């Protein structure tokens, strides 16, 4: 059963070939058998999963027939889930049992989906390798000496090893797309504001966006249709209507204009990755697409702009962890300052502290204009590059990550090298446009992802292009041998 997509499992439920309880048990058994070697879950919710599965089976017997009813999935441990520990990968929230439910998990639960558990992640979503987690690194199922990517590394590894048929992720600077690329999954970061951030623990609020990570574009379409929509509790949530993303998956690609920015194919891009990406673009051309050169002249400024804006917002967002209302509190505080400083210093890991310090500096008196305002101005230049490019093309294509999965520990001693590897993903968040990762080949036995970027609210188009590509290719169907 675990070799099937969500869409196939959904048909199986509709045709009574399996029940939700059977499906859920199967995946829980796989988690018990395989996760000790991967560390992709922080919490497995066995009991509540079986209860929700029985509930879904009952709803189906009563005549309900939604496409997601009774399908299991895993949630990134950044989404608050009532009565279940929501750690965000941090010691700070190791004891935090959420008193409320995030919009994303509530929507998927209402559609009848069954939560298998909460997946591992970089601490507070700050990282690109899942090595900053308080709960230890996640291993890449394609090669357990390598990273799965991050920050949604647990979600990526769990789905790649088929311990869950799909998972949720969040993407602030590439955290859905890069782990999807490194683990051979299909993942989409929607337009900023498309998916409610309510109950999704904040890292950098003007960049954070939730989205699905799954085996196919079709599965992403099913999930995104259910996750999206206006939410008055999130002041940046947009009121645009949500189309049925599955309805346009099969549209033809005749005349589709694909933009190739030269900045995506310059120095630093691994030759094997470039070969796979170019072959994928050739497949799209065969399907009727036309390739056009576009220019994103400020792309290389996305790294410095991001590493001012994201830490600045993080330093503000993470000031809520004060050891008073929830989260970790140090033992025997001497006074209030000691309570704050020791609780925070014990609760946060090194990378989180680093970003808080950078952000605090960028926002402090005398530096605010030079760093934060400057970065926001550059952000507009980057955004305008995309607006201009999308006058001439329908989608932009390129790599997700400059290399395939790197080795565990390879970049932990040099945070800057890790930051620079985010070069192809950060600009998408700064501009707020949607972007996705689609499996497009292997280099040295490791998966490579094709990035597709669209104009605001063009998720349907991206999923359509990815789906048609997946009708022609089989990369996305590959499963690492040890987990087949």
């Amino acid at each position, binding site marked *: 059963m675990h070799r099937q997509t969500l869409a196939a499992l959904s048909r199986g439920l509709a045709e009574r070939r399996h029940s939700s309880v059977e499906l859920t048990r199967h995946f829980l058994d796989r988690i018990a058998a395989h996760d000790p070697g991967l560390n992709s879950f922080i919490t497995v919710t066995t009991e509540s999963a079986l209860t929700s599965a029985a509930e879904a089976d009952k709803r189906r017997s009563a005549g309900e027939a939604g496409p997601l009813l009774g399908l299991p999935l895993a949630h990134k441990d950044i989404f608050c889930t009532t009565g279940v520990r929501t750690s965000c990968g941090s010691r700070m929230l190791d004891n935090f*049992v959420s*008193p409320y439910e995030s919009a994303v998990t509530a929507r998927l639960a209402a559609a009848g989906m069954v939560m298998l558990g909460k997946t591992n992640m970089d601490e507070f979503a700050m990282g690109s390798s899942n090595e900053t987690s308080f709960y230890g690194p996640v291993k890449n199922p394609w090669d357990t000496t390598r990273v799965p990517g991050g920050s949604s590394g647990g979600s990526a590894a769990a789905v790649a090893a088929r311990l869950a048929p799909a998972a949720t992720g969040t993407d602030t600077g590439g955290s859905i797309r890069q782990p999807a690329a490194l683990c051979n999954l299909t993942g989409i970061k929607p337009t*900023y504001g498309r998916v409610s951030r309510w109950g999704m623990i904040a890292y950098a609020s003007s960049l954070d966006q939730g989205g699905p990570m799954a085996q196919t574009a079709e599965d992403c379409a099913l999930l995104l249709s259910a996750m999206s929509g206006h939410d008055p509790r999130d002041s*940046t949530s947009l009121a645009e209507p949500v189309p049925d993303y599955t309805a346009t998956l099969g549209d033809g690609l005749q005349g589709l204009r694909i933009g190739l920015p030269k900045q995506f194919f310059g120095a630093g891009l691994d030759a094997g990755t470039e070969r796979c990406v170019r072959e994928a673009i050739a497949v799209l051309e065969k399907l009727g697409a036309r390739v056009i050169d576009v220019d994103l002249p*400020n792309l290389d400024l996305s790294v410095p702009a991001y*590493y001012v804006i994201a830490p600045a917002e993080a330093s503000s967002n993470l000031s809520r962890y004060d050891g008073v209302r*929830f989260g970790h509190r140090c033992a025997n505080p001497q006074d209030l300052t000691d309570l704050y400083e020791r609780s925070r210093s014990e609760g946060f890991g090194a990378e989180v502290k680093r970003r808080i310090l950078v952000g605090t500096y960028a926002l402090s008196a005398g530096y605010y204009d030079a760093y934060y305002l400057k970065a926001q101005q550059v952000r507009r230049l980057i*955004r305008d590059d995309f607006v201009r490019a999308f006058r001439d093309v329908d989608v932009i294509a390129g790599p997700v990550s400059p290399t395939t999965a790197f080795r565990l520990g390879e970049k932990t001693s040099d*945070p800057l090298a890790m930051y620079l590897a985010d070069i192809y993903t950060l600009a998408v968040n700064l501009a707020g446009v949607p972007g996705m990762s689609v499996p497009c080949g292997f280099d040295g036995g490791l998966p490579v992802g094709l990035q597709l970027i669209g104009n605001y609210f063009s998720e349907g188009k991206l999923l359509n292009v990815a789906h048609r590509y997946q009708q022609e290719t089989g990369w996305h169907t590959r499963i690492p041998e040890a987990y087949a």
Partner: protein
Amino acid sequence: MALTESDVEKIAHLARLSVTERERAEVTARLTSILGMVDRLQAVDTAGVEPLAHPLDATQPLRADLVTETDRRDDYQRVAPAVENGLFLVPKVIE
């Protein structure tokens, strides 16, 4: 720009983080290298460019000033480290 260890101490205090003496040199070096990378922004001509805070330039929506939240104090205080009679406990602030 290069930070000094006393700059780091000041920033850490603003962020209510303590950086131990043992960590100070390393943290200073790491922050200096990050700020060095970020300093590339200074060379960009941004004269007349409006800062972008929200990618869609959206403004904050307004709603009617009505009470919509229910009282869930007990639920929220269940996750607090120390409470008494509905109050959060902290070390003595006023002598």
